[in-house]
Protein backbone atom coordinates (compact mmCIF):
# COMPACT_ATOMS: atom_id res chain seq x y z
CA UNK A 1 0.00 0.00 0.00
CA UNK A 2 1.30 3.37 -0.95
CA UNK A 3 0.99 5.72 1.96
CA UNK A 4 0.60 9.19 0.64
CA UNK A 5 0.70 12.23 2.81
CA UNK A 6 -3.04 12.85 2.76
CA UNK A 7 -3.84 9.30 3.77
CA UNK A 8 -1.23 9.43 6.50
CA UNK A 9 -2.66 12.66 7.88
CA UNK A 10 -6.15 11.18 7.76
CA UNK A 11 -4.98 8.10 9.63
CA UNK A 12 -3.25 10.25 12.23
CA UNK A 13 -6.45 12.27 12.62
CA UNK A 14 -8.77 9.30 13.07
CA UNK A 15 -6.31 7.36 15.20
CA UNK A 16 -5.47 10.39 17.29
CA UNK A 17 -9.06 11.31 18.00
CA UNK A 18 -10.10 7.79 18.95
CA UNK A 19 -7.02 7.51 21.14
CA UNK A 20 -7.97 10.84 22.70
CA UNK A 21 -11.51 9.67 23.35
CA UNK A 22 -10.47 6.35 24.84
CA UNK A 23 -7.88 8.19 26.87
CA UNK A 24 -10.47 10.63 28.21
CA UNK A 25 -12.84 7.82 29.17
CA UNK A 26 -10.00 5.96 30.85
CA UNK A 27 -8.96 9.09 32.72
CA UNK A 28 -12.59 9.63 33.70
CA UNK A 29 -12.57 6.24 35.43
CA UNK A 30 -9.23 6.83 37.11
CA UNK A 31 -9.69 7.54 40.81
CA UNK A 32 -6.60 9.72 41.00
CA UNK A 33 -7.71 11.85 38.08
CA UNK A 34 -11.22 12.14 39.49
CA UNK A 35 -9.84 13.40 42.78
CA UNK A 36 -7.77 15.93 40.83
CA UNK A 37 -10.92 17.12 39.05
CA UNK A 38 -12.64 17.39 42.44
CA UNK A 39 -9.98 19.89 43.50
CA UNK A 40 -11.68 22.21 41.03
CA UNK A 41 -14.86 22.17 43.15
CA UNK A 42 -12.97 23.30 46.26
CA UNK A 43 -11.16 25.97 44.26
CA UNK A 44 -14.42 27.24 42.77
CA UNK A 45 -16.10 27.36 46.16
CA UNK A 46 -13.21 29.19 47.82
CA UNK A 47 -12.94 31.64 44.92
CA UNK A 48 -16.66 32.37 44.89
CA UNK A 49 -16.78 32.75 48.67
CA UNK A 50 -13.75 35.05 48.49
CA UNK A 51 -15.41 37.52 46.13
CA UNK A 52 -18.95 37.19 47.51
CA UNK A 53 -19.97 38.75 50.78
CA UNK A 54 -21.83 36.38 53.09
CA UNK A 55 -25.08 38.24 52.64
CA UNK A 56 -24.76 39.03 48.92
CA UNK A 57 -28.19 38.37 47.49
CA UNK A 58 -29.10 36.26 44.51
CA UNK A 59 -30.83 38.46 41.91
CA UNK A 60 -34.50 39.06 42.59
CA UNK A 61 -36.98 39.69 39.82
CA UNK A 62 -40.38 41.29 39.32
CA UNK A 63 -43.79 39.76 38.70
CA UNK A 64 -43.29 40.48 34.99
CA UNK A 65 -40.36 38.03 34.91
CA UNK A 66 -42.23 35.00 36.27
CA UNK A 67 -42.06 31.80 34.21
CA UNK A 68 -45.53 31.05 32.79
CA UNK A 69 -45.07 27.45 33.93
CA UNK A 70 -42.74 26.60 36.80
CA UNK A 71 -41.25 23.30 35.78
CA UNK A 72 -41.28 20.48 38.29
CA UNK A 73 -38.34 18.11 38.31
CA UNK A 74 -37.23 15.07 40.27
CA UNK A 75 -40.00 13.68 42.44
CA UNK A 76 -43.45 14.94 41.45
CA UNK A 77 -45.31 12.87 44.03
CA UNK A 78 -43.60 11.02 46.89
CA UNK A 79 -44.59 7.39 46.84
CA UNK A 80 -45.15 6.56 50.50
CA UNK A 81 -48.70 5.97 51.85
CA UNK A 82 -47.83 8.23 54.78
CA UNK A 83 -47.12 11.14 52.44
CA UNK A 84 -50.29 10.46 50.46
CA UNK A 85 -52.25 10.57 53.72
CA UNK A 86 -50.64 13.91 54.64
CA UNK A 87 -51.41 15.31 51.21
CA UNK A 88 -55.04 14.15 51.40
CA UNK A 89 -55.24 15.84 54.80
CA UNK A 90 -53.73 19.09 53.48
CA UNK A 91 -50.63 18.52 55.64
CA UNK A 92 -52.35 19.68 58.85
CA UNK A 93 -50.48 17.00 60.81
CA UNK A 94 -47.12 17.52 59.07
CA UNK A 95 -44.30 18.16 61.51
CA UNK A 96 -40.85 19.53 60.81
CA UNK A 97 -38.33 18.06 63.23
CA UNK A 98 -35.18 20.03 64.00
CA UNK A 99 -32.57 18.05 65.91
CA UNK A 100 -28.94 16.99 66.01
CA UNK A 101 -26.41 19.46 67.42
CA UNK A 102 -29.01 21.92 68.68
CA UNK A 103 -29.72 23.18 72.18
CA UNK A 104 -33.52 22.82 71.99
CA UNK A 105 -34.49 19.99 69.63
CA UNK A 106 -38.14 20.34 68.72
CA UNK A 107 -40.66 19.86 65.99
CA UNK A 108 -42.77 22.51 64.33
CA UNK A 109 -46.28 22.24 62.96
CA UNK A 110 -47.13 24.01 59.74
CA UNK A 111 -49.49 26.21 61.74
CA UNK A 112 -46.58 27.33 63.92
CA UNK A 113 -44.41 27.97 60.88
CA UNK A 114 -47.28 29.92 59.33
CA UNK A 115 -47.26 32.39 62.23
CA UNK A 116 -43.55 33.11 61.79
CA UNK A 117 -42.20 36.07 59.80
CA UNK A 118 -42.66 35.61 56.06
CA UNK A 119 -40.12 36.39 53.40
CA UNK A 120 -41.36 36.62 49.81
CA UNK A 121 -38.79 36.56 47.02
CA UNK A 122 -38.97 36.23 43.24
CA UNK A 123 -35.90 34.25 42.28
CA UNK A 124 -34.58 32.09 39.50
CA UNK A 125 -34.30 28.35 39.95
CA UNK A 126 -31.44 26.88 37.93
CA UNK A 127 -31.42 23.17 37.33
CA UNK A 128 -28.00 21.58 36.97
CA UNK A 129 -29.25 20.35 33.58
CA UNK A 130 -29.31 23.89 32.25
CA UNK A 131 -32.88 25.18 32.36
CA UNK A 132 -34.13 28.03 34.54
CA UNK A 133 -37.54 28.98 35.91
CA UNK A 134 -38.48 32.12 37.82
CA UNK A 135 -40.93 31.77 40.68
CA UNK A 136 -42.25 33.75 43.63
CA UNK A 137 -41.52 31.98 46.90
CA UNK A 138 -43.08 32.55 50.30
CA UNK A 139 -41.55 31.07 53.41
CA UNK A 140 -39.88 31.46 56.75
CA UNK A 141 -36.21 32.46 56.85
CA UNK A 142 -34.24 29.48 58.09
CA UNK A 143 -32.43 31.82 60.48
CA UNK A 144 -35.67 32.23 62.48
CA UNK A 145 -35.81 28.48 63.10
CA UNK A 146 -32.09 28.35 63.81
CA UNK A 147 -32.48 31.03 66.47
CA UNK A 148 -35.32 29.06 68.07
CA UNK A 149 -33.44 25.77 68.29
CA UNK A 150 -30.01 27.31 68.99
CA UNK A 151 -27.03 25.58 67.38
CA UNK A 152 -24.58 23.83 69.68
CA UNK A 153 -20.83 24.25 69.42
CA UNK A 154 -19.42 22.12 66.65
CA UNK A 155 -22.46 22.32 64.37
CA UNK A 156 -21.18 23.03 60.86
CA UNK A 157 -23.81 21.73 58.46
CA UNK A 158 -27.56 21.33 58.23
CA UNK A 159 -28.85 18.11 56.69
CA UNK A 160 -32.33 18.13 55.17
CA UNK A 161 -34.15 14.81 55.33
CA UNK A 162 -36.98 14.55 52.85
CA UNK A 163 -40.12 12.49 52.38
CA UNK A 164 -39.54 11.48 48.78
CA UNK A 165 -38.02 8.09 47.98
CA UNK A 166 -35.34 7.41 45.43
CA UNK A 167 -35.36 3.63 45.33
CA UNK A 168 -34.42 2.38 48.79
CA UNK A 169 -33.33 5.77 50.15
CA UNK A 170 -35.03 9.05 50.83
CA UNK A 171 -33.76 12.28 49.37
CA UNK A 172 -31.35 14.26 51.51
CA UNK A 173 -29.24 17.35 51.03
CA UNK A 174 -26.98 19.55 53.12
CA UNK A 175 -25.70 23.10 53.29
CA UNK A 176 -23.17 24.83 55.47
CA UNK A 177 -23.89 27.59 57.96
CA UNK A 178 -22.97 30.41 55.58
CA UNK A 179 -25.89 29.44 53.37
CA UNK A 180 -28.06 28.42 56.34
CA UNK A 181 -27.99 31.95 57.79
CA UNK A 182 -28.22 33.71 54.41
CA UNK A 183 -31.19 36.11 54.31
CA UNK A 184 -32.67 34.46 51.19
CA UNK A 185 -32.42 30.94 52.57
CA UNK A 186 -36.00 30.09 53.46
CA UNK A 187 -38.20 27.10 54.06
CA UNK A 188 -40.82 27.86 51.46
CA UNK A 189 -44.46 26.87 51.93
CA UNK A 190 -45.83 28.94 49.04
CA UNK A 191 -45.19 29.42 45.32
CA UNK A 192 -46.68 32.17 43.15
CA UNK A 193 -49.21 33.32 45.77
CA UNK A 194 -50.51 29.79 46.43
CA UNK A 195 -49.61 27.07 48.87
CA UNK A 196 -46.73 25.01 47.53
CA UNK A 197 -48.00 22.39 45.05
CA UNK A 198 -47.09 18.76 45.71
CA UNK A 199 -44.97 18.61 42.55
CA UNK A 200 -42.83 21.51 43.82
CA UNK A 201 -42.21 20.03 47.28
CA UNK A 202 -45.28 20.52 49.50
CA UNK A 203 -45.56 21.31 52.26
CA UNK A 204 -42.02 22.64 52.84
CA UNK A 205 -39.01 22.98 50.59
CA UNK A 206 -35.64 24.60 51.02
CA UNK A 207 -34.67 27.62 48.92
CA UNK A 208 -30.90 28.19 48.87
CA UNK A 209 -30.77 30.75 46.12
CA UNK A 210 -27.04 30.91 45.40
CA UNK A 211 -26.86 27.25 44.42
CA UNK A 212 -28.27 24.91 41.77
CA UNK A 213 -31.67 23.21 41.94
CA UNK A 214 -30.74 19.87 43.48
CA UNK A 215 -29.67 21.63 46.68
CA UNK A 216 -33.22 22.93 47.15
CA UNK A 217 -34.57 19.90 49.02
CA UNK A 218 -38.29 19.29 48.62
CA UNK A 219 -40.74 17.60 51.06
CA UNK A 220 -38.53 18.49 54.05
CA UNK A 221 -39.57 16.66 57.23
CA UNK A 222 -36.44 16.85 59.33
CA UNK A 223 -33.46 19.15 59.69
CA UNK A 224 -30.42 17.80 61.45
CA UNK A 225 -27.45 19.89 62.58
CA UNK A 226 -24.19 17.95 62.29
CA UNK A 227 -20.47 18.58 62.70
CA UNK A 228 -19.50 16.48 59.69
CA UNK A 229 -21.18 14.98 56.65
CA UNK A 230 -19.18 11.76 56.92
CA UNK A 231 -21.98 9.80 58.61
CA UNK A 232 -24.70 11.02 56.23
CA UNK A 233 -25.40 8.61 53.38
CA UNK A 234 -22.09 7.82 51.68
CA UNK A 235 -20.53 10.92 53.20
CA UNK A 236 -20.67 13.43 50.38
CA UNK A 237 -23.59 15.38 51.74
CA UNK A 238 -26.50 14.64 49.43
CA UNK A 239 -28.40 12.13 47.36
CA UNK A 240 -26.94 13.22 44.01
CA UNK A 241 -23.51 13.86 45.49
CA UNK A 242 -23.36 10.30 46.88
CA UNK A 243 -25.00 8.53 43.99
CA UNK A 244 -23.83 10.33 40.87
CA UNK A 245 -20.70 12.40 41.51
CA UNK A 246 -22.47 15.80 41.54
CA UNK A 247 -20.71 18.59 43.41
CA UNK A 248 -21.65 19.30 47.01
CA UNK A 249 -20.93 22.98 46.34
CA UNK A 250 -23.38 23.75 43.55
CA UNK A 251 -22.70 27.46 43.16
CA UNK A 252 -21.30 27.03 39.63
Amino acid sequence: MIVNRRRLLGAIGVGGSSLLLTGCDRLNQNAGFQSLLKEGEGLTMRAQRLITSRDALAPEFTGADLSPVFRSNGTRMPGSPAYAAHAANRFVDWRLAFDGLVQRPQSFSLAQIGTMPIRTQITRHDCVEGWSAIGKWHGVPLKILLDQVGLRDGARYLVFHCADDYGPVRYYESIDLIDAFHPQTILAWGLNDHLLPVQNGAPLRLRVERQLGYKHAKYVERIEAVSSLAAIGAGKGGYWEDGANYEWYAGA
Partner: protein
Amino acid sequence: MAEAVMDVEHAAPRTVVYRHRVATRIWHWINVVVVFVMIMSGLMIFNAHPRLYWGKYGANSDYAWLQIGAIGDRGVLQVGQVKVPTTGVLGRWTDPQGRVQNRAFPHWATIPSNYSLADARRWHLFFSWLLVIGGVGYWAISFANRHVIGDLLPTRKELSPGHLWQDIKDHARLRLPTGEAAATYNVLQKLSYVGILFVVLPLLVLTGLAMSPGMNAAWPWLLDLFGGRQSARSIHFLMMAAMVAFIVVHVLMVILAGPVNEIRSMITGRYRLPKPRNGGEPR
Protein backbone atom coordinates in the same frame (compact mmCIF):
# COMPACT_ATOMS: atom_id res chain seq x y z
CA MET B 1 14.49 22.99 -18.46
CA ALA B 2 11.92 22.81 -15.74
CA GLU B 3 14.15 20.50 -13.76
CA ALA B 4 16.98 22.97 -13.89
CA VAL B 5 14.77 25.70 -12.50
CA MET B 6 13.64 23.45 -9.72
CA ASP B 7 17.21 22.50 -8.87
CA VAL B 8 18.16 26.10 -8.58
CA GLU B 9 15.27 26.68 -6.27
CA HIS B 10 16.12 23.73 -4.09
CA ALA B 11 19.69 24.90 -3.82
CA ALA B 12 18.69 28.39 -2.79
CA PRO B 13 18.73 28.68 0.99
CA ARG B 14 15.30 29.46 2.36
CA THR B 15 15.12 32.02 5.10
CA VAL B 16 14.28 30.76 8.56
CA VAL B 17 12.63 33.31 10.81
CA TYR B 18 11.83 33.25 14.51
CA ARG B 19 8.05 33.54 14.36
CA HIS B 20 6.52 32.31 17.63
CA ARG B 21 7.60 33.46 21.05
CA VAL B 22 7.82 30.89 23.81
CA ALA B 23 4.68 32.21 25.56
CA THR B 24 2.68 31.78 22.37
CA ARG B 25 3.98 28.27 21.86
CA ILE B 26 3.29 27.12 25.43
CA TRP B 27 -0.19 28.64 25.44
CA HIS B 28 -0.98 27.11 22.07
CA TRP B 29 -0.23 23.56 23.20
CA ILE B 30 -1.97 24.00 26.56
CA ASN B 31 -5.02 25.13 24.62
CA VAL B 32 -4.92 22.17 22.28
CA VAL B 33 -5.77 20.09 25.34
CA VAL B 34 -7.84 22.56 27.35
CA VAL B 35 -10.05 23.84 24.53
CA PHE B 36 -10.81 20.33 23.30
CA VAL B 37 -11.78 19.23 26.79
CA MET B 38 -13.90 22.35 27.27
CA ILE B 39 -15.76 21.84 24.00
CA MET B 40 -16.34 18.10 24.42
CA SER B 41 -17.36 18.24 28.09
CA GLY B 42 -19.51 21.26 27.25
CA LEU B 43 -21.34 19.27 24.56
CA MET B 44 -22.10 16.61 27.17
CA ILE B 45 -23.48 19.29 29.51
CA PHE B 46 -25.62 20.57 26.62
CA ASN B 47 -26.94 17.01 26.17
CA ALA B 48 -28.55 17.24 29.63
CA HIS B 49 -30.90 19.92 28.30
CA PRO B 50 -30.50 20.25 24.52
CA ARG B 51 -32.56 23.42 24.17
CA LEU B 52 -31.51 27.08 24.05
CA TYR B 53 -33.55 30.13 25.00
CA TRP B 54 -33.28 33.90 25.08
CA GLY B 55 -34.02 35.82 28.25
CA LYS B 56 -33.90 35.34 31.98
CA TYR B 57 -35.63 31.96 32.20
CA GLY B 58 -36.26 29.00 29.91
CA ALA B 59 -37.47 25.47 30.48
CA ASN B 60 -39.36 22.83 28.56
CA SER B 61 -42.65 24.70 28.26
CA ASP B 62 -40.92 27.87 27.02
CA TYR B 63 -39.98 28.62 23.40
CA ALA B 64 -36.53 27.30 22.48
CA TRP B 65 -34.81 29.00 19.53
CA LEU B 66 -32.58 25.96 19.07
CA GLN B 67 -33.15 22.38 20.02
CA ILE B 68 -31.63 19.05 19.13
CA GLY B 69 -33.63 15.91 19.65
CA ALA B 70 -35.42 12.94 18.20
CA ILE B 71 -38.79 13.10 16.52
CA GLY B 72 -39.94 9.52 16.21
CA ASP B 73 -37.00 7.61 14.79
CA ARG B 74 -35.28 10.63 13.28
CA GLY B 75 -32.69 12.97 14.75
CA VAL B 76 -33.55 16.62 14.19
CA LEU B 77 -31.76 19.92 14.68
CA GLN B 78 -34.35 22.68 14.93
CA VAL B 79 -33.37 26.34 14.65
CA GLY B 80 -36.36 28.63 14.80
CA GLN B 81 -38.90 27.00 12.48
CA VAL B 82 -36.26 25.25 10.36
CA LYS B 83 -35.85 21.53 10.94
CA VAL B 84 -32.70 19.83 9.67
CA PRO B 85 -32.59 16.02 9.59
CA THR B 86 -29.50 14.85 11.48
CA THR B 87 -30.19 11.16 12.10
CA GLY B 88 -26.97 9.32 12.91
CA VAL B 89 -25.12 12.42 14.05
CA LEU B 90 -27.34 14.65 16.21
CA GLY B 91 -30.43 13.76 18.21
CA ARG B 92 -30.46 10.05 17.40
CA TRP B 93 -27.39 7.93 16.82
CA THR B 94 -25.92 4.54 17.56
CA ASP B 95 -23.26 4.11 20.24
CA PRO B 96 -20.26 1.74 19.93
CA GLN B 97 -22.25 -0.99 21.72
CA GLY B 98 -24.88 -0.78 18.98
CA ARG B 99 -27.52 0.86 21.16
CA VAL B 100 -29.60 3.63 19.64
CA GLN B 101 -29.38 6.78 21.75
CA ASN B 102 -31.72 9.75 21.65
CA ARG B 103 -29.19 12.32 22.81
CA ALA B 104 -28.12 15.54 21.14
CA PHE B 105 -24.37 15.23 20.57
CA PRO B 106 -22.95 11.78 19.77
CA HIS B 107 -20.52 9.72 21.87
CA TRP B 108 -17.48 10.65 19.77
CA ALA B 109 -18.01 14.36 20.43
CA THR B 110 -18.42 14.29 24.21
CA ILE B 111 -16.40 13.79 27.39
CA PRO B 112 -17.14 11.32 28.80
CA SER B 113 -18.48 9.37 25.84
CA ASN B 114 -21.24 7.74 27.95
CA TYR B 115 -23.90 10.11 29.26
CA SER B 116 -22.84 11.67 32.56
CA LEU B 117 -23.72 15.25 33.32
CA ALA B 118 -21.96 15.08 36.69
CA ASP B 119 -18.67 13.83 35.24
CA ALA B 120 -18.78 16.32 32.36
CA ARG B 121 -19.30 19.15 34.83
CA ARG B 122 -16.25 17.98 36.82
CA TRP B 123 -14.11 18.12 33.65
CA HIS B 124 -15.58 21.40 32.42
CA LEU B 125 -15.28 23.31 35.70
CA PHE B 126 -11.75 22.02 36.40
CA PHE B 127 -10.43 22.81 32.92
CA SER B 128 -12.16 26.20 32.96
CA TRP B 129 -9.61 27.20 35.60
CA LEU B 130 -6.77 26.21 33.26
CA LEU B 131 -8.42 28.13 30.41
CA VAL B 132 -8.76 31.28 32.50
CA ILE B 133 -5.34 31.11 34.13
CA GLY B 134 -3.65 30.39 30.78
CA GLY B 135 -5.65 33.04 28.95
CA VAL B 136 -5.10 35.81 31.47
CA GLY B 137 -1.40 34.93 31.64
CA TYR B 138 -1.10 35.02 27.86
CA TRP B 139 -2.95 38.33 27.68
CA ALA B 140 -0.62 39.90 30.23
CA ILE B 141 2.55 38.58 28.58
CA SER B 142 1.42 39.45 25.08
CA PHE B 143 0.63 43.02 25.97
CA ALA B 144 3.93 43.31 27.84
CA ASN B 145 6.06 41.91 25.01
CA ARG B 146 4.15 43.92 22.41
CA HIS B 147 2.89 40.78 20.63
CA VAL B 148 -0.64 42.18 20.62
CA ILE B 149 0.29 45.68 19.44
CA GLY B 150 3.11 44.69 17.11
CA ASP B 151 1.95 41.42 15.57
CA LEU B 152 -1.78 40.91 16.11
CA LEU B 153 -3.54 44.25 15.71
CA PRO B 154 -4.19 45.01 12.03
CA THR B 155 -2.83 48.32 10.73
CA ARG B 156 -5.13 50.97 9.28
CA LYS B 157 -3.78 50.19 5.82
CA GLU B 158 -4.55 46.50 6.24
CA LEU B 159 -8.11 47.31 7.22
CA SER B 160 -8.77 49.32 4.06
CA PRO B 161 -11.49 47.68 1.95
CA GLY B 162 -9.13 47.19 -1.01
CA HIS B 163 -6.53 45.39 1.05
CA LEU B 164 -9.13 43.26 2.84
CA TRP B 165 -10.75 42.29 -0.46
CA GLN B 166 -7.41 41.37 -1.97
CA ASP B 167 -6.61 39.18 1.03
CA ILE B 168 -10.01 37.49 0.85
CA LYS B 169 -9.49 36.78 -2.88
CA ASP B 170 -6.01 35.41 -2.23
CA HIS B 171 -7.32 33.10 0.50
CA ALA B 172 -10.21 31.96 -1.68
CA ARG B 173 -7.73 31.04 -4.42
CA LEU B 174 -5.49 29.47 -1.77
CA ARG B 175 -2.68 31.81 -2.83
CA LEU B 176 -1.08 31.90 0.59
CA PRO B 177 1.64 34.44 1.37
CA THR B 178 5.18 33.45 0.46
CA GLY B 179 8.61 34.83 1.14
CA GLU B 180 8.86 37.83 3.45
CA ALA B 181 5.10 38.29 3.46
CA ALA B 182 4.73 34.93 5.26
CA ALA B 183 6.96 36.09 8.11
CA THR B 184 4.15 38.14 9.59
CA TYR B 185 0.44 37.51 9.97
CA ASN B 186 -1.82 38.60 7.14
CA VAL B 187 -4.88 40.65 7.90
CA LEU B 188 -7.41 37.79 7.91
CA GLN B 189 -5.16 35.89 10.28
CA LYS B 190 -4.83 38.93 12.50
CA LEU B 191 -8.58 39.48 12.58
CA SER B 192 -9.33 35.87 13.46
CA TYR B 193 -6.67 35.73 16.20
CA VAL B 194 -7.80 39.07 17.64
CA GLY B 195 -11.41 37.87 17.42
CA ILE B 196 -10.65 34.68 19.34
CA LEU B 197 -8.38 36.36 21.87
CA PHE B 198 -10.47 39.43 22.63
CA VAL B 199 -14.04 38.50 21.70
CA VAL B 200 -14.72 34.75 21.68
CA LEU B 201 -12.62 33.65 24.67
CA PRO B 202 -13.69 36.54 26.96
CA LEU B 203 -17.34 36.00 26.01
CA LEU B 204 -17.04 32.27 26.69
CA VAL B 205 -15.60 32.92 30.14
CA LEU B 206 -18.01 35.73 31.05
CA THR B 207 -21.14 33.91 29.85
CA GLY B 208 -19.90 30.84 31.71
CA LEU B 209 -19.61 32.89 34.89
CA ALA B 210 -23.05 34.42 34.23
CA MET B 211 -24.59 30.94 34.36
CA SER B 212 -23.29 30.34 37.88
CA PRO B 213 -25.88 31.14 40.58
CA GLY B 214 -23.06 31.86 43.02
CA MET B 215 -21.50 34.38 40.63
CA ASN B 216 -24.91 35.96 40.04
CA ALA B 217 -24.91 37.01 43.71
CA ALA B 218 -21.33 38.30 43.48
CA TRP B 219 -21.49 40.00 40.07
CA PRO B 220 -25.16 40.55 39.16
CA TRP B 221 -24.12 42.98 36.40
CA LEU B 222 -23.01 40.01 34.31
CA LEU B 223 -26.65 38.95 33.93
CA ASP B 224 -27.66 42.46 32.86
CA LEU B 225 -24.79 42.52 30.37
CA PHE B 226 -26.03 39.40 28.58
CA GLY B 227 -29.77 39.85 29.10
CA GLY B 228 -30.34 37.01 31.55
CA ARG B 229 -29.01 33.57 32.33
CA GLN B 230 -30.60 31.75 29.42
CA SER B 231 -29.31 34.37 26.98
CA ALA B 232 -25.87 33.89 28.49
CA ARG B 233 -26.22 30.14 27.92
CA SER B 234 -27.16 30.73 24.27
CA ILE B 235 -24.23 33.10 23.73
CA HIS B 236 -21.93 30.57 25.43
CA PHE B 237 -23.07 27.95 22.91
CA LEU B 238 -22.71 30.30 19.92
CA MET B 239 -19.19 31.29 20.97
CA MET B 240 -18.33 27.59 21.28
CA ALA B 241 -19.56 27.17 17.70
CA ALA B 242 -17.37 30.11 16.64
CA MET B 243 -14.43 28.45 18.36
CA VAL B 244 -15.08 25.17 16.53
CA ALA B 245 -15.28 27.04 13.21
CA PHE B 246 -11.99 28.77 14.00
CA ILE B 247 -10.29 25.47 14.83
CA VAL B 248 -11.53 23.85 11.61
CA VAL B 249 -10.28 26.72 9.44
CA HIS B 250 -7.06 27.00 11.44
CA VAL B 251 -6.20 23.31 11.02
CA LEU B 252 -7.15 23.47 7.33
CA MET B 253 -4.86 26.46 6.77
CA VAL B 254 -2.01 24.72 8.59
CA ILE B 255 -2.39 21.72 6.30
CA LEU B 256 -2.51 23.94 3.20
CA ALA B 257 0.45 26.05 4.28
CA GLY B 258 2.63 23.01 4.95
CA PRO B 259 1.88 21.15 8.17
CA VAL B 260 5.45 20.10 8.98
CA ASN B 261 6.87 23.60 8.75
CA GLU B 262 3.88 25.09 10.57
CA ILE B 263 3.79 22.60 13.42
CA ARG B 264 7.56 22.74 13.81
CA SER B 265 7.37 26.51 14.09
CA MET B 266 4.82 26.19 16.90
CA ILE B 267 7.21 23.84 18.71
CA THR B 268 10.62 25.42 18.09
CA GLY B 269 9.46 28.92 17.18
CA ARG B 270 11.40 28.81 13.90
CA TYR B 271 9.55 29.04 10.61
CA ARG B 272 10.97 28.48 7.16
CA LEU B 273 9.57 31.06 4.77
CA PRO B 274 7.75 29.47 1.81
CA LYS B 275 9.53 30.11 -1.50
CA PRO B 276 7.87 32.55 -3.90
CA ARG B 277 5.59 31.00 -6.49
CA ASN B 278 6.86 30.79 -10.08
CA GLY B 279 5.46 33.73 -11.96
CA GLY B 280 3.48 34.86 -8.98
CA GLU B 281 4.03 38.37 -7.76
CA PRO B 282 5.43 38.32 -4.24
CA ARG B 283 3.31 40.18 -1.78
